[in-house]
C-alpha cells in the first residue's frame, strides 16, 4: 500500500469529512488519492487561508476538516490561524509538505525548509514529522484527534518520499 493511501486511511479512520487543499507537487499527488475517497469531500482552494477557513467551517458544522498545503502556503496562514483557529478554538488538522528539508531534491525550496520548524514553533503550532517506517495511518489519525481534543491546530509535515 502506498504512503499516500496510508495517509488517507488515517484521515478516514479519524472521521475527516472534508479536505481543503492548495497543491504543490507532493500535495497534488496526495490529493489524487484523497479524491478517490468516498468519505472525504475534496475542496480545491485558490489560496491557503481559504482552505483553513473552509476546513474550520466543516468543523463548526459538525464534521472534521483537514488542510493539505505546502509549507510556503502555511506561512501565508498566520492571520487566519490566530484570528480564526486559535481565537475561536476550532480543530484544524494540517498536512503540510515539508519542502526544502534535507530530503527535498529541489534546491530552491531550501529557504522555506530552513524556516519551517522555527515558524511552527514560534506560532506555537503542535507538529510532528511523518514517519513512514512506522504506522503512518495511526500517526495521521492521532494528529486529527489531537486537533479535536485540543480544539486547535495540529500539523503533520510530510516529504515526497512518504507518499511512495
Amino acid at each position, binding site marked *: 500500500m502506498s504512503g499516500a493511501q496510508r495517509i488517507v486511511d488515517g484521515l478516514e479512520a479519524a472521521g475527516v469529512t472534508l479536505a481543503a487543499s492548495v497543491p504543490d507537487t507532493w500535495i497534488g499527488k496526495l490529493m489524487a488519492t484523497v479524491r478517490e475517497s468516498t468519505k472525504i*469531500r475534496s*475542496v*480545491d482552494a485558490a*489560496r491557503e487561508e*481559504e482552505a483553513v477557513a*473552509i476546513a474550520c467551517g466543516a468543523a463548526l*458544522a459538525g464534521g472534521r476538516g483537514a488542510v493539505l498545503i505546502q509549507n510556503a502556503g502555511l506561512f501565508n496562514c498566520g492571520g487566519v490561524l490566530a484570528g480564526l483557529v486559535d481565537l*475561536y478554538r476550532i480543530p484544524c488538522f494540517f498536512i503540510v509538505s515539508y519542502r526544502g528539508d534535507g530530503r527535498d531534491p529541489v534546491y530552491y525550496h531550501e529557504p522555506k525548509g530552513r524556516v519551517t520548524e522555527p515558524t511552527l514553533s514560534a506560532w506555537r503550532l503542535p507538529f510532528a514529522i511523518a514517519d513512514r517506517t512506522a504506522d503512518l495511518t495511526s500517526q495521521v489519525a492521532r494528529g486529527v484527534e489531537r486537533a479535536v481534543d485540543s480544539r486547535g491546530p495540529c500539523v503533520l509535515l510530510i516529504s515526497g518520499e512518504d507518499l511512495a
Partner: protein
Amino acid sequence: MTPRKPLLEALVAMLTPEDVLVSCLGANSRYLPHLAVSAPVFALCDSMGAAIPLALGMALQRPDRHVIALEGDGSLLMCPNVLATVAAARPSNLTALLWVNGHYESSGGQRLPAAPVEWPALATGFGITNVERVRDVPSLRTAFPRARAAKKPALLVVDVAFDPNEPIPPYSERPDEIRARFRIP
C-alpha cells in the same frame, strides 16, 4: 444610499431556523447580537476575508441548510480569489452578501484603494453566475429569496451608505461565547 442597519434588519427578518448566518468582522457582527435572528449565527471579530470560505465549509458539510455569508468589500478585496473557489465547489446552498461602502469601516473609516472595482463583473468573471446588485431594502427583499431558491452559489452586491458617525454598537459577545453557542441543529 441606504444605511446598513435597515438592510441588515430586512435580511434578518427573512432568515429562518433552516438557515445559517456567518458574519464578517465589523459592523454586521456588532449589530447582530442586538437583533432577533432565528438562524444560528457565527460572528467573526477578526480574520478579514474568512466569512465566505468559512460559510463554504459549512455549506458543503451541511447541504440540508442554506448558509448566508456577510462580507465587506475591504475584506473581499484582500482575497477575491475565494470567488473562484466557491464557483468551483458549486454549493447549491450558499449565498454571500457583499456590503460595499468603499471604506474600512471598523478600522477607522479609511478609504479602500481608489480603484473602480466592478464587483458583479468580477464575480461573474470568477464563475459566479448568480449575481445581483442590491441598492435598497425593497430590492433586497426580492433578491434574497431569489438567491436562496436558486440552487447555486449566489452573490448579492449590496451598496450601503458609509457614515463615519454611525452609532455602531461595540462587540458584545466574546469569541468563546460565540463558539459555545453556535450549533446547527
